[in-house]
């Protein structure tokens, strides 16, 4: 059984079918990249899988459990986390507090009103470890809003990791990062392989082909091909629909 089984997933905005009877299987432990031209529906798919947006129909089974109709926070608690294409952090919190909040969400009740949360070392230690993993431990006590764009991308990943997901949906984690920051994030993702099942949406083809175990190609809301990086590179349908545009000749 696959960790994530998506069947006949649908979503339309008016007459536009953004997700069109989409099927997708993600195996436990793999890094499964989803590529496709702009407007193919990649971010919508992540939003549907994570529960941020509703779906018009279909099934999303995670570890055998149906997730359709469950709110985002309940899917996160079940083990499905996501990062955002457009950085989504708590700008007024420090980087450490951002990550510690994610640790807090999965460790005990948050209906505690009296003891100061900043002094809970169990939360802070795990948060610091996550920041260290993505390479911004030295920014722990900086306001998240004051970090550079690349550092915010790293923070975003640290927050997602701190929820201790079994399945992590990454929506363009490298978007807008500099070379060094991107290298760092690619290394982090490489380190996560095997330990966490990853669904990666990314425009950086070098990173995708270097990291992915399998790649699915999404065009107009449908998966037109799934395979290893080599299979995808040689697939004539894919070349026509997507890679062909870039290579042109």
């Amino acid at each position, binding site marked *: 059984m696959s960790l994530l089984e998506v069947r006949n997933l649908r979503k339309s905005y008016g007459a536009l079918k953004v997700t069109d009877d989409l099927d997708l299987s993600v195996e436990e432990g793999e890094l499964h990249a989803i590529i496709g031209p702009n407007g193919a529906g990649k971010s919508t798919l992540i939003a549907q899988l*994570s529960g941020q947006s509703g779906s018009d129909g279909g099934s999303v089974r995670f570890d055998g459990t149906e997730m359709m109709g469950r709110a*985002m926070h309940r899917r996160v608690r079940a083990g499905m986390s996501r990062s955002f294409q457009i950085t*989504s952090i708590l700008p007024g919190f420090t980087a450490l*507090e951002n990550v510690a909040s994610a640790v807090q969400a999965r460790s005990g009740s948050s209906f505690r009103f009296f003891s100061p949360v900043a002094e809970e070392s169990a939360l802070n230690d795990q948060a610091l470890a996550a920041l260290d993993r993505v390479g911004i431990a030295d920014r722990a006590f900086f306001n998240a809003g004051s970090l550079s764009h690349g550092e915010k991308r790293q923070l975003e990943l640290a927050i997602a990791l*701190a929820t201790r997901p079994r399945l992590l949906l990454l929506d363009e984690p490298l978007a807008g990062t500099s070379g060094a920051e991107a290298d760092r994030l690619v290394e982090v993702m490489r380190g996560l392989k095997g330990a966490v099942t990853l669904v990666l949406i990314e425009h950086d083809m070098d990173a995708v082909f270097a990291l992915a175990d399998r790649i699915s190609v999404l065009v107009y809301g449908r998966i037109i091909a799934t395979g290893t990086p080599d299979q995808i590179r040689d697939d004539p349908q894919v070349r026509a629909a997507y890679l062909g545009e870039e290579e042109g000749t």
Partner: protein
Amino acid sequence: MRLIPNRAWAATILFTAFAVLPFLAVALDDSYLVVIASRILCYAIAALALDLILGYGGMVSFGHAAYLGIGAYAVAILSRAGITDLGLHMLAAIAAAAVFALVTGAISLRTRGIYFIMITLAFAQMAYFFFVSLSAYGGDDGVTLNARSTLFGQTILEDDTALYYTVLVLLIGLYLLAVAITRSRFGRVLTGARENPVRMQAIGFSPFRYQLTAFIISGCMTAIAGVMLANQTSYVSPAFMNWHRSGELVVMVVFGGIGNLLGAVAGATIALLLEEWLAVLTEHWPLLFGLILVLVVLYSRDGLSGLFRGRR
């Protein structure tokens, strides 16, 4: 956040000043001072309660006067029924406020921004007109209380100074409670949901439950202020829940600086003092008050508490 180490000092100074004020009143032979100050402390509790959800939760309630009224009517209704104990008045006020906040909050929190403001206002107006039509308790005119609440069967609250210190103790206790809440796990979720609700959902929190809980806590605290205000004025009428009053509470919070609790106490103090002083100068005092409010908001985003911190 920067001022937290200083906030404890500022709070100590402010509350100490309030604690010695009755001695000053005796020295000046001005008993009216204690009466005004009691009123200020009651409003400080209400402003503190509002700042908890407005400043930390991002919920701009424009109907918080309803809870003042609920607290006040709890005193009026129980007193007429022969129940005079302050503790029971408090319990009834808190219970009624909790129910009102639970129902109206659950509905209001389905909206955001200007809609939240309007829907809380609408609920408060409904409460207002309910009490206007309550002819058994004087309708529009309200009722005069024959006596203040009793404390352990004693009528000591009839003494203005005793009443004053009772309100002060309540204010300090509720202030410390509010500070603890904002620093707790709960407070972090509440603040996080203000900063970015989608992010909070994406780490596994449902903001609604936390926001609703905070809304109820704030309503109950405001009802406590209403109980004390009814005792202070010995008079209860629907005017307690008039929407002007809700607006004044928001003004106090903004005046003192949103989201630092002590600012709400200072804001209530300064706003009511200005009202007293300006009213002596001219009957058009709201004009001057408005001007001062505009200047404070223009020149200090953090209200009066920002002035003490210097510029960024």
